[in-house]
């Protein structure tokens, strides 16, 4: 297989949060403008646009959002192809992979990948129901499953099988809030302690409010081009050295093991194989912590820790900023925020900042290789990317 090497030459991200004065299109254009300014390119150089978005149709009753973003970016005047990509929570990561493939294949040179979600124009219950639609509507949701409830089933079983403790779950949230406090774009920029998590209202036992990522508005974007062109635009191109995607059963109850995300494992293996790297090479990782249990399962399935030891590793600080592998330096979905379609792209933005050495107070020392893991539903889609400083 002959592929061109692909680099990220520009990144942009809006503030994440409950942004009452920002519309979907304002967020999407905002992130895109930051990314193209960062890359130093102009609209007429963009050859294609990919937009990750889960459910604009239900959140703001607007479909056809790739055309909308192309239009309001001013690039629809040049009739460039604009494509929306959807895989629930993995929409952003999957959009990145589509952009990567478009450049790697030689079909396009300069591609913009965006991700956006505007979640707070609907109420909390409606927002939860929309998120639950990533699960099987007929055989999970209709029978009473909520998105948090399904993750609670994973947590209960993980605690039963591996002795993961309630406190270890809390430690994920505590760490990610500590990191988020250092990120000026994060939704929550305040440190918390275990007590705050353990005293927060119950959502689905054992998961409490502080075990769950919030509803957020926000957008993120990156600009890609062939690595051999990247020097024209930037002194610090970051190469995408590995890209892996995998699927699994839509329903949690059809998985071989509800404490393991088979899709994450398969995507991880594919990404590392493409990159010719291994887990010990990774300095910094953004993983899909939509619930605290998700991060514990992720760091296991990504191969950073043996199965069952994700909680212990978190408790021991091995995933902190100064740990063996710094996980979710942005604050993760928990503290940076989780505007669903934007999340996978926001993860890439954070890793690029880290590998450029521009992550300010949350900088991981000498970060050379970074990883992103983006999950759709309860694990039916997983996308893993590996990035390296050139």
């Amino acid at each position: 297989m002959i592929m061109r090497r692909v680099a990220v030459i520009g990144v942009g991200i809006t503030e994440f949060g409950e942004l009452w004065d920002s519309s979907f299109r304002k967020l999407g254009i905002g992130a895109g403008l930051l990314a193209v300014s960062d890359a130093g390119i102009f609209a007429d150089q963009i050859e294609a646009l990919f937009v990750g978005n889960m459910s604009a149709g239900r959140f703001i009753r607007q479909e056809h959002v790739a055309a909308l973003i192309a239009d309001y970016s001013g690039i629809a005047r040049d009739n460039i192809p604009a494509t929306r990509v959807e895989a629930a929570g993995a929409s952003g990561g999957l959009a990145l992979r589509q952009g990567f493939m478009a450049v790697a294949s030689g079909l396009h040179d300069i591609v913009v990948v965006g991700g956006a979600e505007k979640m707070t124009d609907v109420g909390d219950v409606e927002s939860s129901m929309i998120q639950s639609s990533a699960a099987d509507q007929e055989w999970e949701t209709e029978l009473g499953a909520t998105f948090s409830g399904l993750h609670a089933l994973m947590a209960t079983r993980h605690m039963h099988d591996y002795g993961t403790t309630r406190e270890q779950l809390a430690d994920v949230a505590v760490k990610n809030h500590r990191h988020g406090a250092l990120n000026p774009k994060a939704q929550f920029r305040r440190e918390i302690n275990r007590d705050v998590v353990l005293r927060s209202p119950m959502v689905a036992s054992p998961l409490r409010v502080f075990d769950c990522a919030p509803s957020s508005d926000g957008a993120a974007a990156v600009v890609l081009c062939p690595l051999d062109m990247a020097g024209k635009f930037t002194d610090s191109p970051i190469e995408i050295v590995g890209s892996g995607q995998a699927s699994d059963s839509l329903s949690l109850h059809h998985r071989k093991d509800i404490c393991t995300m088979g899709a994450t494992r398969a995507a991880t293996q594919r990404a590392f194989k493409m990159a010719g790297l291994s887990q010990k090479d990774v300095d910094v990782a953004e993983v899909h912590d939509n619930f605290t249990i998700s991060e514990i399962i992720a760091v296991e399935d990504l191969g950073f820790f043996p199965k069952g030891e994700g909680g212990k590793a978190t408790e021991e600080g091995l995933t902190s900023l100064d740990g063996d592998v710094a996980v979710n330096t942005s604050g993760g979905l928990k503290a940076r925020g989780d505007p669903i379609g934007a999340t996978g792209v926001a993860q890439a933005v954070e890793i690029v900042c880290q590998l450029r050495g521009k992550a300010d107070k949350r900088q991981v020392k000498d970060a050379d290789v970074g990883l992103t893991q983006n999950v759709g539903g309860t694990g039916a889609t997983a996308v893993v990317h590996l990035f390296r400083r050139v």
Partner: protein
Amino acid sequence: MATAPRFWRENPSRYNMVGFKCNSCGKFYFPPRIICPLCHRKSVGKTEPVKMKGTGAIFSFTEVHEGMDEHYVQKPYILAMVELDEGAKVTGQVIDCDACDLSIGTRVRSTLRKLSEEGSAGVIHYGYKFVPARENRERSGDE
């Protein structure tokens, strides 16, 4: 709002737990599938609907407090993943008990109950839920 046929067409499986047996490999599935994920195209024409016994054991469970649509009337409620005796796993509510009465491995059996209602004048949806099996009580009575 979803239309009535969307729910009506699934009634055989929601009311009576009718699943699917692949006669190519002998495996049971619930809910029914169009093809067997193990046998693929070889399973076409070799599958039959099979009513599950509805008995099994709790594989994992949670007490849900938040995040459900208002037309699910009772909160909190217990949500479980149940491993049926035929080998298939299903998701459903556990009723007529408290969460503290349950643990992983507790035996349950299915029962037909109201799942949700679309407002005071809308369609009522029925389907399976689970209750602790009598054998649990007998066992605790022996102690």
